[in-house]
């Protein structure tokens, strides 16, 4: 056998290559089965960036479907709740140019709001419960409904189906726990530095020691 191969070096080389190909092919095949990635990892990462309001303003039924669409080449600028920061993060992740927010899908809300049901007016139709994508509305047929405000994402999908228009979107009021310092006003830099620039009616500074 060896003598035969030595006689035909071309055949020997061919055999060696075929053998290597078979071994590596088998190895790769095994790895593909053994280390198979569950789901779509890129869509998962995109989904992590999306704000999970599940509002459907992008035209997809929830954040996950939009994440999958982005992974398949959809534009990244269709998510108003994510805002510019969200688009920037997506652009960084996918290494594409950040686009301005597509105004067709709505504007960035000034402040995140939560749904509030005026309970006296609620007729207990359960339509909002069916509309809520995160099960944040509590109630039963012909019973008053209410919103679990800590779970509400502010997607306002419950406002439309309400037959008596008793749902308001209200910005959550600031409490001691949610208050924080704001960045200093940049205007303070452009204040008149020279004393004579100041308007006459400004009270003179207290010099009493």
């Amino acid at each position, binding site marked *: 056998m060896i003598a035969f191969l030595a006689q035909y070096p071309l055949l020997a080389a061919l055999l060696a290559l075929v053998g290597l190909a078979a071994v590596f092919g088998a190895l790769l095949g095994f790895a593909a089965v053994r280390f198979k990635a569950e789901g779509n990892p890129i869509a998962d990462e995109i989904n992590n960036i999306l704000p999970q*309001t599940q509002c459907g303003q992008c035209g997809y039924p929830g954040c996950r479907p939009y994440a999958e669409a982005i992974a398949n080449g959809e534009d990244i600028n269709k998510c108003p709740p994510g805002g510019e920061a969200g688009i920037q993060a997506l652009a960084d992740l996918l290494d594409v140019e950040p686009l301005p927010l597509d105004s067709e899908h709505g504007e960035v809300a000034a402040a995140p709001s939560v749904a509030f049901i005026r309970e006296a007016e609620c007729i207990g139709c359960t339509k909002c419960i069916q509309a809520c994508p*995160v099960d944040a509305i509590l109630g039963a047929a012909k019973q008053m409904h209410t919103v679990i405000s800590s779970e509400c994402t502010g997607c306002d999908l419950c406002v439309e189906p309400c037959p008596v228009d008793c749902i308001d979107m209200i910005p959550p009021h600031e409490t001691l726990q949610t208050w924080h310092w704001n960045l200093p006003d940049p205007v303070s*830099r452009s204040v008149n530095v020279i004393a004579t620039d100041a308007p006459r009616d400004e009270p003179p500074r207290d010099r009493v020691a």
Partner: protein
Amino acid sequence: MRKTFTFHGGIHPPENKHQSVRTPIADAGIPPELIIPLSQHIGAPAGVVVEIGQHVLKGQMIAEAQGFVSVPKHAPTSGTIHAIEDRLIAHPSGHLAPCIVIVPDGKDEWIECKGTPHYETVDKVKLIGLIRDAGVAGMGGAGFPSSVKLSVKAGTHIETLIINGTECEPYITADDALMRERAEQIIEGAKILRYIIGPQETLIGVEDNKPEGIAALRAAAQGTGIEVVDFPTKYPSGGEKQLIEILTGKQVPSGGLPSQVGVVCQNIGSTVAIYEAVVHGRPLISRVTTVTGNAVREPQNFQVLLGTPMRYLLEKAGYQPEKNRRMIMGGPMMGFTVPDIDVPIVKTTNCLLAPTEAELPTPPPAQACIRCGMCAEACPASLLPQQLFWFAQGKEFEKLEEHNLFDCIECGACSYACPSNIPLVQYYRASKAEILQQRRDHEKAEASRIRFESRQQRLEQAEAEKEAKRAARKKAAEQRAQSAGTDTGEDPIQAAIARAQAKKAAQQGAGDEQSELEKLEKTVVSAQKRLDTATTKLEQAKAEGSDFVEALQTGVEKTRTKLAAAEQALTAYQQSHNQAAAEQDAPPVDAAKAAIEKAMAKRQAEAAMSPLEKAQSDLAKLQQRLQKTEEKLAQSKANGDEEKVIVALESTVVRLSEKISATQQTLQAAEDA
């Protein structure tokens, strides 16, 4: 002399401490109203346990701790609960917060207090419980519950207990006054802490600008094994991590706790409060507060009840509001401007600073950063304030975290050193808050995602269940149909299904019928053919005189009967089909017409009828209906149907009988006529 270390950076602002230590601690007395905010510490607010109008004694618990990181609140004096409402509190936001308002009765009557002077015989966990029940929270500034700090995780080896008597911030002398006047209490408190924690050494760290305090402490600490260590004055030596580095040379890791390097720290004020709580059983209801600044005539330290409005205290010190443009709680470096001077003193109010404009001028407008690097030299946490400033302006939060923004203790040394007057600390505070907000948002998004996905799953599951039920019902119906088919007995459901199927088949159009018809015709034709061939064969056989004549004869006869049967089936089918077709075709074409015609015919017939006849026919109809309804009623009663059905049927019977009697009357009338 113990070797001390130093930390990076630090500044030396004017101390201004001498003004307020000229007189001993004065008792502020009982104000006309006490306002006790439910949240005076880091952690969950306390829960109210009193009612409006209730009379409380001094030291009685009025709000209980809720959760692990929380402490209770006690009545600072005896009096009546006047209100439980939202009041303005000492907080930079200027927000209202829930408070308990007490109107004192002036008797200052103590509730019964049970002290534990021999604490060495008591379990340590029980002592920590006593400290917690007394409402002791860090009195240095942050207000972290002391009991939480003392509950060191099991297995952590604590080498050093440090009592923090540094008080590095300018103007404040509350701890200095305590050291001068209550050194014994501090040492006793330190001994209690030493018993609870069990460290190898106990140190009291004091800056060398308080020689009287150091001397008093040293005298009191004689023979106790507690060492009083003094070290050069530098702001901010009083920061927990900075003090640990000064005294032990160890650095607390970034984001870590002092216990990780074997150290526990307690403030002087908290130590005294712990002494009071353990030895005398008295809760934390008052504290020493410095009132100072050039806008008060007699700067001094007061022993003041918690909840005392600042205005009351300031007036005791000779406050001159016309000289004061902003009131600061805390010191000039880390304090904040209070929204109003009617806010109450709380556990963390170590100082009220009422400066004049000349003393603490409004910061001039910020100018551009000139990258001088003085902030980095001043930073006690070895951060890069300038870098952090750029990132904060650009809102580059990831970079801020990479540059350890969260190790910033907000001491203000960088802002103090900045020649461009940039309010650096405010940038850091805002950025920290923004990052925390982002973390919270991300957590919420994660929770929303999970909720959304589980909802999706639930909906799918419900759909699948419905589908499965539908399939099961279908299967059951089929099975029943099969079993009914084999059964000879009359099954009403089976009959109904058969009827429905027959109807469906009839409605399905001529297609099936055509094939059926063809099939029947084919059978007839093939039977005919077979009969023909069989007859010819028979004749042949007869002609040949074969043995098979008899057999062939029977075969021909059999075929003939089959043909007859097939022909019969065909005619029967044709008849029924024609009928069906007639039924089917006629109504769609002029069903309406037919109905109209029928109705018109009926109408005409009725019109032709005399009133008598009409009444008679009506009566007959009604009686028929009554009979039917009664039958139904009897049946449903026998079946044990729902009560509703029976009631409805009964009422129908009654109505029909009424109608019958009415019709009978008209009949009578017609007859009479």
